[in-house]
Each structure stands twice: as C-alpha cells, then as structure tokens.
C-alpha cells in the first residue's frame, strides 16, 4: 500500500538526518576529546622515541578514543542483550495481534520481529534493535487494546515502528556512546588541567609564605595554566550543556515525528485527548519547568501535533544553536591550527604554504559541512508541512538570534579568545587586532545560517536536490568568500630580521 501524505517522503529525510546527526556528534566528540586528551598525553612521552613521531600525541589520543568507544559500545551492547533476555520475551500467539502488526510493518517497508513481554501490568511498547534485528516488544498489558481498541493499538505499534524505520534507535545508540566517551575524556582532561593549576597554585602560595623555598613557578606560566583550566572548564561545560539539551530536544522532536508518521500510516490521531485551555492553566509551575527536559512531549503537545493534521511543525531550535556553535568551533579550531593571531596567520599563509594551511582548514571544513547539512535537513523537515502563510521575517529573525547565540557561546568558551587576553591592558583592542579575521568569518557564518534556512524552506517544496545541495553549501561558501577577502586585503608580511622573529614566526 502506498503512503499518501509524507511518510514515504519523510522517512528518507529522517534517516538522512539521523545519519548526519550521528556523524556530526561523533566528529564533535572525537575532535574535542582528542585535542584535549592529546594535550594531556603530550608530557608523558617527553624524551622518549615516541616523541620523534609527528603529532604523536594526537595519534595516541585518537587510538585511546577509538579503544574507549569500542569498549563502551561493546559493553552497552552486551548489557542491552542481557536486559532483553532478562525480560523473557515471548512469541506472540494471537493472529489478531500479529496480523495488525505485520500490516503496519509492510506499510513502512520494515522487517520486524514482534514479541510480548512482562506480566499483565506491563503497559510499555518498546522498539529496539537486538543483534541487528528490529524488534518490537509489546507489554502484556497493552495486548487487550488489539481487541478492544484496535485503532489505538495500531497507532502505538506504528509509532514504535516509525522509530525503527527512521533509524532512531541506532542513531541514538551511536550518539549516546559518543557522549559517554566524551564525558570520560573531558573528565580526565579537565581533572588534569585543574590538577596542574592546583599544583602551581599551591607552589606559588608556598613560595610567597617562605621566600627561602626555591620554586619553579613562573607567574606568566601560572596565568597561562589558570586560563587553560578556565577555558577548558568553560568549553566542556558549554559543550556538555549543548549536547544534553540537543539530545533531549532531538528525542522530543523524534517522538512527535514518530507520532506524525504513525498518524499518516494509521490515518488516526494520538490516542489521548489534549487538555483544554482551562485545564492547562491549572498545570503547576514545576510541570512547566520540567516539560522541556522530559524524554517524551506530554499528551497535550502530542495530540495537538496530529489533531491539526500537521505532525511535522515542531522545529528543534536547539539544533540551530548547537550547530551554529559547532560550525563556529570548527572555524576557530582551523584558524588555531595555523597560528594564534590574525597577523601571524596572514604571514604564514602568504609566505609559506597555502596548501598545508588548506589541509588543516579542510579537516575542519568536513565537520563544518556535516553540521551545515544537518541543520538544513532538520530545518527543511520542519518546514515540510508548516504553514506557508507564517511570517518569514519573524522566523528568520528568530533563527538569526539562535545562530548568534551559538556563535556567542563558542566565543565565550574559545581558547584563542581567552589566551589573547593574557597580559594586556586593553583587551578589546588586542582582541580586535589579533582575532579580527576570526570575527569576520564567524559573522559571515552566523548571517549565512538563517539565510540558508530561509532558502531551505523554499527548496523543500520544490524537491530540487541540486538547489538543496547548493543551499547546504551556502554557509560554507560565505565563509570561504570572506576568508578569500581576508587573504587578499591582509598586509604582505615584513622580512624576518631578528632571531626572535625567526622563533616567533612560522614563516621565517
């Protein structure tokens, strides 16, 4: 049976979004973890043969991350299987249930194993993948619905199968594995940075108390360490907060999309009545505060989403904030790899090798492009069925605010910004002088995101893949254009004179 409204069109988009999200979050967790883990590992191999290998600390950190990921993934897989077996799932006997379930699976093009589990008070329906097999487990307490309320029963099954069809379980599994690895690496790096800072702080205090003690503390190094610990704490804090919020928001959006797909397949609404306005007013404050952090949207949101006949209106604004943060971070990291300030970067690019600079930018660019694709796919998904009469200027303004918010969060936690502030009287002047190229690129990025999102709304209705591809490339093109402009207007570097210049300048 052919699906009518959007499921057959939306499923590929949802699958693509899930794949992109897996890649995007994986690369984010990998890049940050490896950079900081590498910094932590670096001193351990001083004066050993390993030190002769170029970028050995990053290679070791990558290997550590890989081993950690494989361990986490393996342990969680085994744990999931053990829990699956402990639930003692049973084969379904009733043809009434299996026929209903198979009918929906056929409509969604899925091969699913249906099992029953738990006692009579078990009212959950669970979608999962065990040993590469898609499984829907139906709690015994839900089975009566198949006979008494078949429409509701079909909706519940269709909702779970929509999760499986969109690869939600697999994507969520990959992402949560990376979150765990990131938490371990971030925790270790942060502990090392704070430990170093604490050590030097104690050393400095002891030196002040007793001038006879010979101390290695260098005030400049002390400030550097303090800033390093602060910047690392801030970066890990912001990234952890964004990852948590993004995961919650994505899961909630996924639930509404699964409801939408289920409504499309079963041609019925969510089996729960929304509360009316008066009942909603009675809701307490705690409920309102906790609402965004719950794994599932409440019945009111869910029933309204399908009652209006448009289940796909929910736009995950946190995706814009998070990915604006990520895209800015990749720009920042790419520039940091070249040199620490705008003048040196210009000198290096002009005098040395444009190619070697581009390699560093290309790596950041790959991650940047994936984040751009994800945010455009998420945006176009939500616009797919949204009201075309809604005010575009208002939507664009909101999205501009979200992208600027993401950029500002990145700037606040950027090491290149914090290190520019070391030992200066006029920090703003210094920031503008040293990081002006970064600010220009970030501004271009922050402005390009809402513009691309605006065009993605139009492109969705036209289904033109070439146009959609061009829209995804738009933020990257804007950043590249600004980067080329910066390259052209930058002063030609002066010749190297003193030995100090030779040490300080990479181009000498």
């Amino acid at each position, binding site marked *: 049976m052919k699906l009518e409204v959007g499921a057959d069109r939306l499923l590929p988009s949802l699958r693509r979004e899930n794949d992109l999200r897996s890649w995007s979050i994986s690369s984010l967790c990998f890049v940050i973890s490896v950079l900081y883990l590498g910094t932590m590992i670096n001193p351990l191999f001083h004066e050993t043969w390993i030190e002769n290998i170029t970028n050995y600390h990053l290679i070791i950190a990558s290997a550590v991350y890989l081993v950690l990921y494989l361990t986490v993934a393996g342990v969680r897989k085994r744990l999931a299987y053990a829990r699956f077996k402990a639930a*003692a799932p049973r084969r379904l006997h009733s043809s*009434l249930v299996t026929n209903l379930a198979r009918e929906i699976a056929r409509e969604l093009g899925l091969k699913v194993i249906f099992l029953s589990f*738990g006692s*009579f008070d078990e009212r959950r329906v669970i979608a999962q993948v065990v040993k590469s097999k898609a499984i829907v487990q139906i709690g015994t307490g839900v089975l009566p619905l198949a*006979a008494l309320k078949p429409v509701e029963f079909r909706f519940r099954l269709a909702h779970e199968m929509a999760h499986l069809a969109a690869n939600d379980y697999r994507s969520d599994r990959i992402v949560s594995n990376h979150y765990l690895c990131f938490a371990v690496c971030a925790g270790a790096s942060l502990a090392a940075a704070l430990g170093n800072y604490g050590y030097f702080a104690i050393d400095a205090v002891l030196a002040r108390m007793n001038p006879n003690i010979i101390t290695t503390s260098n005030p400049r190094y002390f400030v550097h360490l303090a800033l390093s610990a602060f910047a690392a704490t801030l970066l890990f804090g912001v990234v952890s907060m964004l990852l948590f919020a993004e995961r919650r928001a994505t899961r909630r959006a996924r639930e509404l999309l699964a409801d939408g797909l289920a409504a499309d397949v079963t041609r019925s609404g969510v089996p729960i009545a929304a509360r009316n306005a008066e009942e909603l007013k009675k809701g307490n404050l705690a409920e309102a505060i906790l609402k965004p952090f719950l794994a599932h949207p409440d019945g009111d949101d869910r029933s309204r989403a399908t009652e209006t006949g448009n289940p796909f209106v929910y736009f995950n604004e946190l995706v814009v904030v998070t990915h604006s943060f990520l895209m800015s971070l990749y720009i920042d990291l790419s520039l940091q790899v070249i040199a620490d300030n705008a003048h040196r970067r210009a000198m290096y690019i002009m005098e040395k090798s444009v190619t070697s600079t581009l390699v560093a930018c290309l790596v950041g660019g790959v991650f940047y492009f994936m984040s751009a694709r994800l945010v455009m796919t998420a945006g176009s998904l939500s616009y797919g069925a949204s009201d075309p009469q809604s005010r575009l200027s208002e939507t664009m303004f909101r999205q501009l605010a979200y992208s600027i918010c993401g950029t500002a969060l990145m700037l606040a936690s950027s090491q290149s910004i914090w290190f520019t502030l070391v030992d200066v009287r006029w920090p703003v002047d210094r920031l503008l002088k040293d990081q002006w190229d970064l600010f220009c690129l970030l501004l271009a990025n922050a402005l390009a995101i809402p513009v691309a999102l605006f065009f993605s709304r139009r492109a969705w209705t036209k289904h033109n893949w070439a146009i959609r591809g061009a829209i995804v490339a738009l933020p990257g093109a804007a950043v590249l254009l600004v980067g080329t402009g910066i390259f052209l207007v930058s002063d030609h570097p002066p010749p190297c004179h003193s030995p100090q210049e030779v040490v300080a300048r990479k181009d000498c």
Partner: protein
Amino acid sequence: MDNARTAGRNEFIDSLMRDVSPEELPLISDYQSAIDAPSVKNIDGLEFGIEDAVVALGPLIVFAGTKVFTDLSQWTLQTGEKIAEKYIKKGTEHLLSRWLSSPKKGGLREVLNEDGKRELMSMVRASFRNKKIPKENVDKVLAALERRLFDDR
C-alpha cells in the same frame, strides 16, 4: 498439571471469556503465556511514552480461571485430609477430578459444599489484592466465575 486438566483449564477459561469478554477470545493464548511472566524494570529501547490504564477483563478472567484450577487441583491431591473434607461433599471427589478434565457449567454445585464455595471464591478474590485493579472489574469477573462454577442455568 496433566494434559487433560490443562485442556480442561483452557476450555474453562475459554467459556468464561465467552461469557464476560468475547471480543478478547483471540488473545487467550497470549494471556495464558503471561501468567507466570516476570515483571520487567529496565529494558533498552524507545518507548511510546503514554502508559494509560487499559480497562480489560480478559487478563482477569485468565488469572481467575488459572487460580481456580490450581486450587482445586491441590484439593484433589489432599483427598482424605481435613481441608478437602471440609470443602468437598462426601463421595464426590471423583466428580471433582472429572470436572477438572471436562468443566461443565455449574458442575461444581454438586461437588463443593457452602464452605468450599465460599473458600474458593475468597481465594480467587484474595489473589487480586494489591494489583491495582478496579473493584467493579473484580466483582464482574467473580460474579461470572460464580455463575459458571455453580449455576447450571
């Protein structure tokens, strides 16, 4: 429980379901396999998120029917003992065994005395305690059970 009694139990549950909730007849086998199933706390996977109560009598019927057969089977094993003597009319032990293999409507009226009838019904009622089941549903199932056991009209 031997095969004849298992078949008798299934026949009894089937007829009780037909009396109370015929629309749930296709689900009996799935209900029966859940009787001794363990409760599950943690399980991996994505959930539906709305776990509202389902008002269904089918699971109660299966539960009650199974309880009746388990208890009566134990009484038949205790023939000659005080408990069985107290509840089963003298000389009808063989009728009880026959009923367990082929449960006829109202067949226990001639087998159990008033104490036995009261004890059996109170044992079934007690098995529903602490299960958060609405009282009216329990009453409905017990009334149907009583009719099926002791009323041959």
